[in-house]
């Protein structure tokens, strides 16, 4: 089992706020890692630390054997890391195909336009978005989410970070997107996904990490996670405090 990504004790602060505290995990190649936790737990911040948006103050990030702790986002893209954003960010005035070509031009290999065009066509077919000539701004939200993924895939990453790709989709679109994520993994791409839709993340993750207030409160298989007392407390609240509140009434 080759470790693709190793996150070793990373800590991130924003002013007085400790956004991440000593996050540590190894991600083997070919796995899907689910990243869950209540609002403000630090999930997107962890993505931003891994892909170089906000480098951590402490700890190390090793990607494919290299220390990438201080690497810039564009360097990470060349090294084989791609991501999607929770709020989709298409280049609205470009066509769908051109948007996807951007991923290929600035991804793992700096392809020229011809090759980038071919990759874009392949990826669009794979992702099921046959609207290459349409302006990206004219897509509906489900299509924009697919475009966001297509652009990331066109970068030909080893590791793909997916930030809430299911949010805002209707139930049948959700099913389609889950299938797409599984197909991406079949292509040999390792995935970390932040997801609030628990049914989905529990269903497709090999392992899950739970963050709460910037700390890693649990890691394990989906079965281990749903029975973990700290996870239940993070999601549902502290039963002892609730008991106290009820006693105050009586």
């Amino acid at each position: 089992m080759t470790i693709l990504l190793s996150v070793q004790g990373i800590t991130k602060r924003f002013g007085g706020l400790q956004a991440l505290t000593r996050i540590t995990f190894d991600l083997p190649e070919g796995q899907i890692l689910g990243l869950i936790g209540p609002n403000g737990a630090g999930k997107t911040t962890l993505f931003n630390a891994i892909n170089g948006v906000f480098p951590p103050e402490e700890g190390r990030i090793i990607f494919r054997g290299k220390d990438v702790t201080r690497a810039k986002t564009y360097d990470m893209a060349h090294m084989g890391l791609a991501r999607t954003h929770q709020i989709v960010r298409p280049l609205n005035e470009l066509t769908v195909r051109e948007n996807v070509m951007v991923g290929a031009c600035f991804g793992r290999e700096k392809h020229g336009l011809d090759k980038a065009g071919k990759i874009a066509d392949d990826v669009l077919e794979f992702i099921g978005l046959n609207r290459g000539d349409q302006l990206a701004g004219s897509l509906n939200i489900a299509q924009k989410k697919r475009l966001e993924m297509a652009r990331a895939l066109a970068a030909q990453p080893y590791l793909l970070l997916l930030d809430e790709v299911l949010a805002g989709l209707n139930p049948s679109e959700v099913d389609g997107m889950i299938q797409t994520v599984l197909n991406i993994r079949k292509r040999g791409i390792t995935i970390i996904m932040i997801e609030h839709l628990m049914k989905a993340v529990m269903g497709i993750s090999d392992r899950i990490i739970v963050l709460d207030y910037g700390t890693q409160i649990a890691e394990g298989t989906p079965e281990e996670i749903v029975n973990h007392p700290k996870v239940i407390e993070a999601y549902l609240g502290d039963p002892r405090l609730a008991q106290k509140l009820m006693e105050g009434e009586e």
Partner: protein
Amino acid sequence: MNILEVKDVVSGYGEVQILWGSTLSLQAGKVTCLVGGNGVGKTTLLRTTMGLIRPWQGSIHFEGQDVSRLPPYTKADLGLVLVPEGRQLFTDMSVVENLEMGASNKRARSKMKQNLERVYEMFPRLKERTGQKAGTMSGGEQQMLAVARGIMADPKVLMIDELSLGLAPVLVLALFESLRKLRDLGITILLVEQNVQMALAISDYGYVLSEGRIKMEGPSRQLIKDEHVRSTYLGL
């Protein structure tokens, strides 16, 4: 008697549909909670009820009157008041100025003095800090101020979006206890919370929202013991 009835409401933002037909009603004088995980539509349901978002379909009745299409300020005049998520205080204004801003509707203006005494009695900490800039207070104090500003609007129904988010447990307990005092003043409360345990412990009746739909409802004392609540939450 149901003071607020939200029926089959469908809404969202732009082209993103969040609510897929949500129905709930508030019994006057009671505390009702709406719980559910991240991103299931709790805040959207409150914002739609308040009129910050127009419902795409469905209806909202307040004291028997159809208010589905009324703007938020008109609803506030009628006595439907929202304490928004993230407090949304006027951070450069003092505590008392923030409180006065809450009393901007006509009914509330005439009762400003009386309501000010009420909130100072409920939250003595605010009385100690009347002149302090809101933005310089702690998170818990700011949350108190947000609730207090809502009370200044002289609500019949007070909707609170995330009372406990990001607060230390001791403050959480104190804030929840203050809800009881509000209820005893005759204010009907709709509480949206991520902290399910606390929300069910304080409320009379609860709704569980999941994927834009109400998945369960019932008396809170029953829901708090119900394993299905947990599984709805954790997606099993």
